[in-house]
């Protein structure tokens, strides 16, 4: 590894965290929007939803976290796209910096910023009555799964950011990712859905991830869900990483 890798990575992460802090739009979308969803579902729709738990916030929180991450990584794609378009990547690559520090800077920023918005949303959920009896280990497991999910989506975002031809293309890719939690067990139990929708909902990645986090937070046994969730996250991450690296090599 290049001896300057961590120095260069530090510069890159500092730079893109500044981008986030100076963009009201980003902060609003990645934290305020998911919180608004949470308020809407708990205080407007929640009364009519039979979730099978005493407290609907407890049921809802995992899905809200995934939506927040999905909208968070769309900004990673956007920032990557801008760097490629404006020739900033080119400038970096004509300098004696550690190879791929520029790309890893965006990936690490994505992890850090999503972690911050997840923490903020959990704090708001606590105010709204969310309670968990989970122990330290369970919380660590939740953090680990969320980090893997973030990484998997970040590499998908990297493919989009590195290969998109226009800004519209960059933002379009994240809509399905934000939409996916809606057709899962994130907001309502899947048993209330018609068979075809139910079959889709139960076999797409979000449901297993949501169910795993929910069980961990409620101190319920996670069963095989956790392995399915991990397989999805790692599988998507590896495949997306390979394609993202290909797109990256094409760009530099």
């Amino acid at each position: 590894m290049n001896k300057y890798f961590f120095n260069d990575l530090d510069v890159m992460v500092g730079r893109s965290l500044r981008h986030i802090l100076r963009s009201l739009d980003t902060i609003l979308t990645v934290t305020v929007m998911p919180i608004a969803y949470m308020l809407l579902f708990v205080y407007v729709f929640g009364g009519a939803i039979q979730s099978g738990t005493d407290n609907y916030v407890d049921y809802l929180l995992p899905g809200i976290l995934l939506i927040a991450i999905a909208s968070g990584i769309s900004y990673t794609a956007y920032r990557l796209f801008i760097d490629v378009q404006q020739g900033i990547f080119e400038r970096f690559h004509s300098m004696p910096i550690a190879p791929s520090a520029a790309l890893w800077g965006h990936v690490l920023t994505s992890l850090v910023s999503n972690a911050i918005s997840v923490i903020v949303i959990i704090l708001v959920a606590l105010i709204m009555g969310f309670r968990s009896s989970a122990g330290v280990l369970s919380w660590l497991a939740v953090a680990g799964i969320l980090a893997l999910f973030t990484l998997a989506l970040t590499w998908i975002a990297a493919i989009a950011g590195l290969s998109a031809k226009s800004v519209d293309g960059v933002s379009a890719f994240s809509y399905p990712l934000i939409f996916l939690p809606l057709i899962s067990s994130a907001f309502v139990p899947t048993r209330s859905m018609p068979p075809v929708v139910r079959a889709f909902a139960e076999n797409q990645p979000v449901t297993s991830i949501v169910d795993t986090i929910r069980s961990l937070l409620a101190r319920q046994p996670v069963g095989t869900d956790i392995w399915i969730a991990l397989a999805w996250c790692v599988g998507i991450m590896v495949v997306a990483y390979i394609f993202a690296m290909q797109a990256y090599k094409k760009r530099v």
Partner: protein
Amino acid sequence: MQNNSIHVKELRKSYQQLHILKGVDFEVEKGSIFALLGSNGAGKTTIIKILTTLLKQDGGRATVNGFDVAAEPDQVRQSIGLTGQFAAVDEVLTGRENLLMIARLRHLKNPRQVADDLVNRLGLAEAADRRVSTYSGGMRRRLDIAMSLVGKPQLIFLDEPTNGLDPEARLEVWKMVKELAHQGTTVFLTTQYLEEAEQLAHRIAILHEGRIIAKGTLDELKKLFPPAKSEYIEKQPSLEEIFLAIVGKKDVKQQ
């Protein structure tokens, strides 16, 4: 002792069926300003990308500051600065932060000091702590060039440095380039404006259909043409001269 900053021999590059460079040869003397002239799509940017290690050539050899661009890219990167065709500045950061970022990425001892010095030297002090998104085209370009000067590389590449700038900003950039050369930095620039090459360059090469079809000093190039006939023509001011005269006057009045 090596007297050439750049040495290019038989350089070839194709994109699929399109042969962009078909054997390009030239040298750039240390400390000089060298202009590569050519129309759009002639391959000027391709040459810059190969020389700055962003692109690999298909054939031929190129050395920059004595290092082979294909075999020793790290040493090449260490010794050059690049200002690409579009101002590659970070719009969200301030001018000073941009310079500081580059200084840190070049692993300099005292990055903050380097950034402050450049800010003062280039007359950006007033705007240094404003976000670059508020800069005019000329200021943005000046910052862009300043960013390629961080770490005092011996050679800088400027790809169409005045493209899209207004006449005043163009003069500012010209002044900056001349000062650089005065301090001993070698400047390699591409341009499609003949006047720019005439104003700045010690040596000029013309790239056409993948080859250098003419090179030399301005005087040498002039000799390639039939000797000048003298005719008496009333000299009309160019629109640029008129524009600059009026704008210049206005500035004086405001002060």
